[in-house]
């Protein structure tokens, strides 16, 4: 697909041709650019968003290679060492949470586990939940929005009703209650233990979030289906499925990408919050939220164990938010003010 260049893009193109115009450079400058290429050019110039993107990438790498990294540091997240904590106060010995050359961010109160190793494994938990729950929201939301917007009529009223009903649910409270109910159920559909916990948390966050993306997609599809290129495809005898997948869906990638990038940090915060109040993950699964809860009794005397997981959570969420904001501006320049 070729689109016309905006005046500012033409300027950039003219600049890049510069003094030695002619030759291969000149041909390149008038080459049509895809929307994706244009967005990428804009994103590259947004330093804050790029910094966010780099941090996100680093955190993903740390999460993937957590076992290798902790091995390299010579620490295991669940190794208990009572020698590192004071038996009477249960606090880590030494200042700054017992930080040392061996334990860079100190050790946990009571059990004396390495905090840095725990943070790395906690990043895995956070990212798995963030990505999986977002994916679930997208699958439900995009299919519901696409069907509602494309077929209209009774399909639209039915799907929109369901989405409205879900939006008028007290979601947070209901999630808490649902998780509490599942904590008394030993197994469900043959799944039990930690995998069941993952499944329930992903379901609770992802399912209740789907109406938001569903509404966005529905709105987009309602306007896209009236566009000339869809009409052209229809008059050529394209099937509904082909129009939806080949004509409409590619135009939805932008908004979906932006929505996904800004939803992941929300779900990461959601999981941490649920684990903080004690209905999310339980040991031995490591979650930044439950680490923050554990810090509750000790932070008055030694705040290290509060600050380490808190900052990890803050930096991760902020990086996703910065990157997502930049991505939105890059994909839709009109939204930038």
């Amino acid at each position: 697909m070729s689109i016309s260049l905006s005046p500012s893009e033409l300027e950039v193109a003219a600049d890049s041709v510069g003094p030695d115009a002619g030759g291969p450079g000149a041909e390149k400058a008038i080459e049509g650019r895809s929307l994706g290429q244009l967005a990428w050019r804009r994103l590259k110039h947004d330093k804050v968003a790029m910094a966010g993107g780099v941090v996100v990438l680093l955190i993903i790498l740390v999460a993937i290679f957590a076992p290798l990294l902790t091995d390299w540091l010579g620490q295991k997240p669940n190794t208990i060492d009572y020698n590192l904590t004071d038996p009477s106060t249960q606090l880590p010995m030494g200042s700054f949470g017992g930080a040392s050359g061996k334990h860079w961010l100190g050790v946990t109160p009571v059990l004396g586990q390495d905090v840095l190793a725990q943070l790395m494994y906690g990043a895995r938990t956070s990212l798995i939940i963030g990505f999986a729950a977002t994916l679930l929201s997208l699958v439900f939301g995009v299919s519901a929005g696409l069907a509602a917007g494309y077929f209209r009529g009774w399909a639209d009223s039915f799907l929109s009703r369901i989405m409205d009903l879900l939006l008028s649910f007290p979601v947070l409270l209901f999630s808490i209650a649902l998780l509490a109910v599942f904590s008394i159920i030993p197994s469900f559909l043959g799944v039990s233990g930690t995998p069941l916990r993952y499944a329930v948390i992903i379901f609770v966050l992802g399912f209740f979030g789907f109406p938001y993306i569903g509404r966005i997609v529905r709105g987009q599809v309602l306007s896209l289906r009236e566009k000339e290129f869809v009409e052209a495809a229809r008059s050529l005898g394209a099937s509904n499925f082909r129009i939806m997948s080949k004509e409409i869906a590619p135009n939805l990638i932008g908004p979906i990408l932006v929505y996904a990038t800004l939803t992941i940090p929300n779900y990461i915060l959601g999981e941490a919050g649920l684990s903080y109040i004690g209905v999310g993950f339980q040991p031995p699964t490591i979650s930044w939220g439950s680490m923050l809860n554990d810090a509750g009794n000790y932070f008055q005397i030694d705040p290290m164990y509060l600050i380490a997981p808190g900052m990890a959570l803050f930096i991760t969420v902020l990086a996703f938010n910065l990157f997502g904001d930049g991505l939105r501006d890059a994909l839709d320049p009109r939204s930038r003010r």
Partner: protein
Amino acid sequence: MIRYIIRRVMGAVLVLVAVSFVTFLLFQLAPALAHRSPVYYYVGKIPPSPGGLKLLEHRFGFDLPWYDQYWHYLRSIFFGQTVSDGDTTTHCGAPCLGYSFRLNSSVDSLILQALPVSLSLAGGAAVLWLVGGVLVGTVSGLRPGSFFDRAGMTGALTAVSLPIFFTGPLLLLIFEYKLKWLSNPSYSGITQDPLQWFKSLILPWFALAFLFAALYARLTRANMLDTMGEDFIRTARAKGLPRRTVVIKHGLRAALTPIVTIFGIDLGTLIGTTVITETVFNLHGLGLLLITGIRQQDLPIILGVTILAAVALVVANLIVDILYAVVDPRVSYG
């Protein structure tokens, strides 16, 4: 207009029935999946004799089909019911949301005790975040790209990335343990000891308001930018109206209408949003009541608080919808 209101009320009632039904069904099904008699989650113990268990299951109506059980629950909300765990029998008057045998109290009175705490927390925080968020958002929206705008929006993005269960303990650490401005304040009713009430809530207010103010500032800024680009603003300027009048009477009024909607719905979900704040600051409000119910596996409390939250949200939605129709003549009553 009246027809519109009637239609909205009927819609709200329908949503309430659906929400309460799904909630109820879920909590009735859970014990079956846990392979434990539902009696355990209602009275906290299983009677030793099988006959006693059968009797209790019969009294609670667990031997009835699910639709009868739901009907039973609805009826007790409107007419009250007599409950018994085999040893003690009490009457729970309407509106009876259930009876907690573990705490020896009706869920209604537990909720009534917790409600003022949650309302104080949410009310104070709402004033703070509304004033702070709208002020920052308006100034930012009027001068996009200025230093204030960039600082304000950076601050807002930082604030939405900071969870209350991190900022809360940090506030406690700084103001209570390091600076010692507040010495372990415990909650007291506003009528008993207003100063103590204020002292116990000032940190939770700021922790909660910080997050919401950021969201409101971002929203107000975006609305303000949209509004100030509208034709009617240009018309007002062209008429020679002073800038203050244009901004306040024409700009702010239009920009704030969507904020009012969001504010109504946020107030409706306050029972949910205060859970974490109440946990952090150990305030015995509705959120902490729910957590207590969960820790003790006390089903009537969980069910009661969840249904109350649903009612609050549906009523808030209804009020916002009706107010919207009254305030904004562009809304059709179709």
